[in-house]
């Protein structure tokens, strides 16, 4: 195992310098700060951490964070965010975490990127656009033998403006209207059997399970693009993603669609749980006993 770690490090190191130079060159507009891509790879994050020019946000449970996390990371368990995710409160959180307006923020979890995606989406929604998902989960990071620390990090409170990006958001009335509107499309990102059981009428299923691939929370852009194009979804469609309850799986789908080059994507964060509680219609498929195929 020791040997393996060394090998991994050795492999990662030389790549970092080259990448760092490239990225630094690309950075425009905000002096000193890099403009992050949708997904941040490990090399780039390590460079930024070393240069102390990134805020790493760990969205796992507090006790997991305490047991070890990516260096300089702060802790923001998803549950804490969801207690109150009003834009005003989220901006307060950004400020508490010492995040300034243009500072790159990289979010990670240990749940195949879905929790991180929900947090990243929320940050971007309230105006912190320079937010990215780490390409891998914490377990994978650790498995590669990359740096981990246990010290709890706090940073000086910062000022952050509030600038809600309504384009990213959908609520139930919006979804209901979209059902019959040309060019708008609902995407259910739950697993296949849940989708078959019940879903919002007109929704198409892109299960979150097809979005990642080994070692990466999201597949490469061209693969995602091909898979979504296979479904005959035009590039200029407006897509609204939803999932079962709080917008985590659909958060990941949101970023997958973005990465695939679909620019007009919205998240319905309250998702199917709210839809059902509002007593809205749903499509059910009862003609087959598909659950009995599962070996669980």
């Amino acid at each position, binding site marked *: 195992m020791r*040997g393996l770690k060394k090998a991994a490090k050795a492999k990662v190191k030389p790549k970092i310098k080259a990448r760092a130079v490239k990225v630094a060159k690309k950075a425009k507009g905000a002096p000193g700060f890099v403009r992050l891509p949708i997904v941040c790879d490990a090399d780039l994050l390590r460079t930024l951490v070393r240069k102390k020019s990134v805020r790493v946000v760990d969205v796992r449970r507090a006790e997991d964070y305490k047991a070890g996390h990516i260096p300089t990371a702060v802790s923001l368990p998803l549950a804490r965010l969801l207690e109150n995710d009003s834009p005003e409160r989220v901006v307060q959180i950004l400020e508490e975490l010492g995040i300034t307006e243009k500072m790159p923020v990289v979010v990670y979890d240990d749940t195949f990127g879905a929790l991180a995606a929900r947090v990243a989406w929320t940050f971007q929604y309230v105006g912190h656009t320079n937010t990215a998902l780490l390409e891998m989960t914490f377990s994978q990071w650790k498995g590669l033998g990359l740096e981990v620390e246990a010290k709890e990090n706090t940073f000086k409170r910062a000022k952050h403006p509030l600038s809600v990006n309504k384009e990213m958001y959908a609520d139930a009335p919006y979804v209901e209207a979209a059902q019959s509107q040309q060019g708008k499309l609902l995407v259910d990102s739950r697993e*296949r*059997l849940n989708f078959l059981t019940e879903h919002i009428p007109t929704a198409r299923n892109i299960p979150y399970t097809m979005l990642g691939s080994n070692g990466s929370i999201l597949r490469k852009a061209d693969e995602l693009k091909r898979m979504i194009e*296979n479904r005959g979804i035009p590039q200029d469609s407006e897509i609204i993603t939803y999932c079962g309850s709080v917008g985590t799986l659909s958060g990941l789908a949101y970023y997958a669609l973005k990465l695939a080059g679909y620019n007009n994507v919205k998240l319905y964060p309250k998702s199917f749980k709210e839809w059902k509680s509002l007593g809205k219609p749903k499509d059910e498929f009862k003609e087959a006993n*598909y659950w009995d195929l599962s*070996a669980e």
Partner: protein
Amino acid sequence: MTRARAAAASQKQRGVSPPKPNPKWGREEETEYFAKKVKLFRQGKISEDDFRRFRLQHGAYGSRLHADYSMVRIKVPSGEITADQIEKIASLSEAFSIGSAHVSTRQNIQLHWVQLEDVSEVMRGLVESGLTTREACGNTVRNVMCSHFAGVCPNEAFDATPYSMAVARFFLRNPMCQNLPRKFKVNFGCCEKHGLVKVADIGLVPAIKEIDGRQVKGFRVYLGGGLGAASFIGHPLEDFTPEDRVLSTCMATVRLFDRHGNRENMARNRMRYLVHETGWEKFQKMVLKERTAVEMTTSLATAASYDVESQVDKRALPKSNGIVKLPMFDKVTKDSPAFERWLHTNTVPQKQQGMFTVFITLGAGDITASQLRVLASAIRELSAEGVARTTPQQNFAVRYVRGSDLKEFFDRLSTAGLANPGALTVASAVGCSGTTSCNLAITNSHRLAKEVQRRFLELGLDTDDSLADATIKISGCPNSCGQHEIATIGFFGGATRIGNTMSPTYTMLFGGSAGEQGELGRAIMRVPAKRVIDTILKIIETYRTERSQGETLHQWVVRIVKGQGAGNVKNLDDMKKVLVPAIQLPPAESDPDAYRDYGSDSKFTAKTARGECAA
């Protein structure tokens, strides 16, 4: 040390072979082609019927009453599958299916409820690991089966696997079989006992014959068998077919079927009907004559694409580390330690001294992605040949496991819930996919098979050796994918009005068997779905009081079918009388659930749609 090198070192230590090379059954360009055709179909540029043919030829079968989804049937030629392939299937099942895969009774592996638009992605993944879905459905030569004991069976003349592989390669994408009147099935056995050779269009059992003082390899060939709504047992073509005539025999048979088979009546267009209607003796003559024509006219180039030699596994398989003393108990009970019970019912010694074939008990062939990964790693590290075989009993067989590694193998399976006992016993019930995904199904045979297995394991029936050679096989309709006609006790689903209530029922058959002496079961009576388990238990109870000394359940059932019972139950009429109380349902008002199918909490209705076995 790198991970690869560490793995190599540990393999060396255990003496596991280097992995088999990628068999390259699949082709990348077919995946693109499929995706393109789906788009054209969705745009209305290909008709539904035309597209169905295309889709089936590429192994995607329409899902039950929902055309947007497919069952993707992965061909596993000879049932042989590598650890890498199993891992690939695990990932694909998670990404595009339901997180489980399903072993079929013809050694395929199926992924259900795959969105039609994702089928090309599944195919793409399969190609990477060397697998294909090409011609897994449709009117062509389907997956070529081979006994999972081939190569390790103590009673085989020689290993039929390379022949099975060569036949599969020859016919795959071969223009001569792309548009047959109907599907065509080729099954290889290993010995008289193992393999489904009498219920295939062509069945072959390896044999050695002395000709002019020389030991010649060859086969006993059976033609025109098959299971379905009307089933037939295959006919022996000749005493012995030497190996150099295997290809021409197969080609001649396919050509005759192509030329004379019924293309009009879908219900009667399998080759067995042609054989039946022509009369065996006439058909036999036609085959022998056609074979000569094939041999006189086939080009060397065509003949060269049937290459048995290239299919021989030339790796020197490591030897076992001698004979290991194993607790191969004469008797286990349901209170025996789990390992002992598993050892007793899930492992078989091979002809290679000190080596064992290990069976993985699945429930009606279902296995989760994470279980597949555990299985793959166990195969990679503990099977000297580094591959597994799927079995027609819907389990996996992992061969070349050293006696000294069995405990570790068991422990690993246990961590994933894969170490259930009973794989080689009556508890390992077979069930087709039924109403879980098939258009033709009337009942949920799949769930029923799982329920039978669960109950039997609970009762410890796997530990009763006298039941071990009996089999239970369940189909959700008369079409026999669950192979109910070759079971000791078989069932096929239907709908019957009981009182005023439409109810799921099964027609029960007795006395079927596989192998070279295989016979078809006889239909006995209808049993309500929810009474099936109790009815089987009643049969077992009756057997236990009625049997002769040393007689197994299977032997006893066959004797009853022949009307030769010794005690109170002499024949099927007696048997029926005994079973009548077991099949009674309480009144529908007091127990509505008794009239519902497994997996359903609503009233039973028999709903089917067009089948896709033929296009």
